[in-house]
């Protein structure tokens, strides 16, 4: 199969559904589901079958982004994107008749959520372009929307070196937290000799308060598989693993379905699309250990062992899974690959800032009006993200700080909200991009308590292999606990700062090295809150 054949196939799939010119899309991702989206779907289907117009199709889609207003339903033309819709919020089964009636009539005003507001208008969708639009369980739907074109193009028209060159040109950096240049990582794996190479997709998404990867998988799983297959072709691997956290049962289901369907249609497995290239993917489940998001620990877990991190070097690119050269990238990183191959590295590199290219998906949560997922170009200011897109803090409360980078990151106070968000600027503020979680805190948050919360997290998630992390986090937690309860003296604060330095400098893996960050950053911007709690 070549690109033309696939385009034909896509055309054919589009023609099959051409009679249905209107769609009622129901978000069936985890968040809306827990609000009752499946009941809404059933009700809509029933009304549609009984009395709806024949040119309308009710379908399940993935995450539309505005999770806090769910269950979400969108009524749209068949080819409309995410925002070109009549969007309905907090839909109940009882609303089904009105919504079906609106397919050819006036929108249901009482349920309507505008899509011309900044939350939707200010976004730029690359990774999430099909999220909330296509049916995640349908391989046909993915292909009809241009899916697998990039893979077939890579396999039939490009050499592995050309694929890597395109990714390098794009300037894409890893979305899992570290921000390592993806092209460079791919070329290292490609260059390393090895009889068997592996590609791993890191879908452990350990940062509590981040749900980008879950939403991408639940909404557009084939895109992740396509990215992995292109990567495998580029580096010379024929076997892949997706490591998903067990807390995401729906994402696992969606992936299983996607893998099965991709294999059946020849887009995965032996001799993909009748080329010489073969690639097989297996799912591996986590079991509730944050440290398993760290790449060496993750590989230990895939091998069936404890998720203990290993010192690097050797890096996975040289000696990874079962000692073989291994490429490991994050879900969102893989999600960017197909668009880069389709539209070119230069196009991608034209978006974003000097050293951070493309878009980033962020999960907005905490004390913010619009809770959900957004995708914006790198370099947008935090103020735009929080005040305009996020709608600021609810209940008239004043904004206090935003935490990025999860338990490994730090907080940013109001004074610095105008900086453009990219890998480097966040670092200079003492935090990091991380995987894209943004937790907003309002004036009611107590920053010492926040620091204690993150330390408790790191303490219980420390794997215990190295002493600085195992005991250091415990001691820091004890000190923070005393501080939070106003039982600490000035010497305790000095001790805390010293411990931060030691743990940062001497821990084995990223967990310990970054565990002090929330403390250091709250100390940097909210030292007075610590001092106010000191006794004597």
């Amino acid at each position, binding site marked *: 199969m070549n690109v033309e054949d696939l385009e034909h196939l896509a055309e054919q799939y589009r023609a099959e559904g051409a009679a249905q010119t209107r769609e009622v899309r129901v978000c069936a991702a985890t968040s809306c589901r*827990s609000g009752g989206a499946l009941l809404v779907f059933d009700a809509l289907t029933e009304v549609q079958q009984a009395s709806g117009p024949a040119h309308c199709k009710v379908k399940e889609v993935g995450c539309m982004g505005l999770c806090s207003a769910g269950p979400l339903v969108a009524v749209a033309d068949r080819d409309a994107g995410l925002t070109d819709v009549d969007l309905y919020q907090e839909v109940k089964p009882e609303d089904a008749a009105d919504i079906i009636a609106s397919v050819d009539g006036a929108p249901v005003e009482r349920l309507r959520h505008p899509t011309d507001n900044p939350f939707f208008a200010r976004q730029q969708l690359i990774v999430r372009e099909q999220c909330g639009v296509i049916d995640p369980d349908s391989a046909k739907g993915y292909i009809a929307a241009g899916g697998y074109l990039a893979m077939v193009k890579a396999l039939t028209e490009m050499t592995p070196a050309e694929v890597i060159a395109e990714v390098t040109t794009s300037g894409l950096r890893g979305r899992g937290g570290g921000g390592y240049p993806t092209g460079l990582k791919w070329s290292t794996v490609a260059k390393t000799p090895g009889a068997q190479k592996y590609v791993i997709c890191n879908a452990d*998404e350990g940062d*509590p*308060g981040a*749900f980008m990867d879950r939403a991408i998988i639940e909404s557009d799983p084939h895109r992740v598989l396509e990215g992995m297959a292109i990567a495998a072709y580029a580096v010379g691997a024929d076997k892949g693993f997706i490591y998903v956290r067990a*807390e995401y049962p729906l994402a696992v289901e969606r992936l299983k379905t996607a893998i099965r369907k991709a294999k059946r249609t020849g887009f995965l497995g032996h001799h993909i699309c009748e080329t010489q290239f073969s690639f097989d993917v297996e799912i591996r489940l986590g079991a*509730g250990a*944050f440290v398993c998001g760290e790449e060496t620990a993750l590989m230990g877990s895939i091998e069936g062992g404890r998720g203990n991190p290993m010192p690097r070097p050797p890096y996975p690119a040289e000696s990874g899974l079962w000692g073989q050269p291994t490429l490991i990238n994050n879900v969102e990183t893989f999600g960017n690959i197909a668009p880069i191959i389709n539209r070119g590295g230069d196009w991608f590199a034209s978006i974003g800032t000097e050293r951070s290219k493309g878009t980033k998906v962020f999960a907005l949560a*905490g004390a913010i009006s619009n809770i959900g997922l957004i995708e914006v170009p790198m370099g947008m200011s935090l103020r735009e993200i929080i005040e305009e897109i996020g709608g600021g803090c609810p209940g008239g409360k004043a904004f206090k700080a935003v935490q990025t980078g999860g338990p490994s990151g730090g907080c940013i106070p109001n004074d610095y909200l105008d900086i453009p968000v990219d890998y480097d600027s966040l670092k200079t503020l003492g935090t990091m991009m991380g995987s894209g979680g943004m937790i907003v805190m309002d004036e009611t948050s107590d920053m010492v308590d926040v620091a204690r919360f993150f330390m408790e997290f790191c303490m219980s998630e420390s*794997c215990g292999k190295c002493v600085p992390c195992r005991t250091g986090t415990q001691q820091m937690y004890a000190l923070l606990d005393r501080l939070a309860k106003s039982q600490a003296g000035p010497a305790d604060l000095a001790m805390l700062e010293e411990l931060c330095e030691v743990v940062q400098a001497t821990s084995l893996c990223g967990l310990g090295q970054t565990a002090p960050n929330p403390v250091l950053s709250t100390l940097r911007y909210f030292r007075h809150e610590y001092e106010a709690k000191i006794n004597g």
Partner: protein
Amino acid sequence: MAAIRLARPGANPKGLPMQRPHPELPSSDKRWKIINTTMRRAGYAEHALIEALHGVQDAFGFLDEQAMSFVAESLDLPLSKVYGVATFYHLFQLKPQGRHTCVVCTGTACYIKGAGALVEGIEERYGVQPGGTTDDKALSVMAARCVGVCGLAPAAVVDGTLLGKLTPPKLLERIAQEIAE
């Protein structure tokens, strides 16, 4: 057996087919068959360990010594390794669980939105903290680090159902309902 050896490089350096009998199923309980199938599909390779333990926990609710020994023998691993893995991962339970479970999300978004109050509410009513089970074995309480619905924080999972935008009374009512059923 040949395929099995292939899947486990290093175990048998000379590449000779080594016959090792697989242990008998601990009882006629059908659930063991399912677990055994999981391991067989992976060629009884070491990397099937976590999946096998997931299988045991899904089937029996927790991992006891009999189950761990069975998995260890099947995969030709020392029991200490199986125990080491079982205790490393938070999701694996080594004790029998209550008839109902409530997993409170204590991730960051839920923490900001009051997960602490949910945990306290449960403790007040049932006298158990995350990790504990009530004396009458009616309820086990656990904590999870983000269940992925931060938009609906604070969240909890009661008997497999994900609930969002909770308050302590709402959660307690739901738990009471489940227990009463």
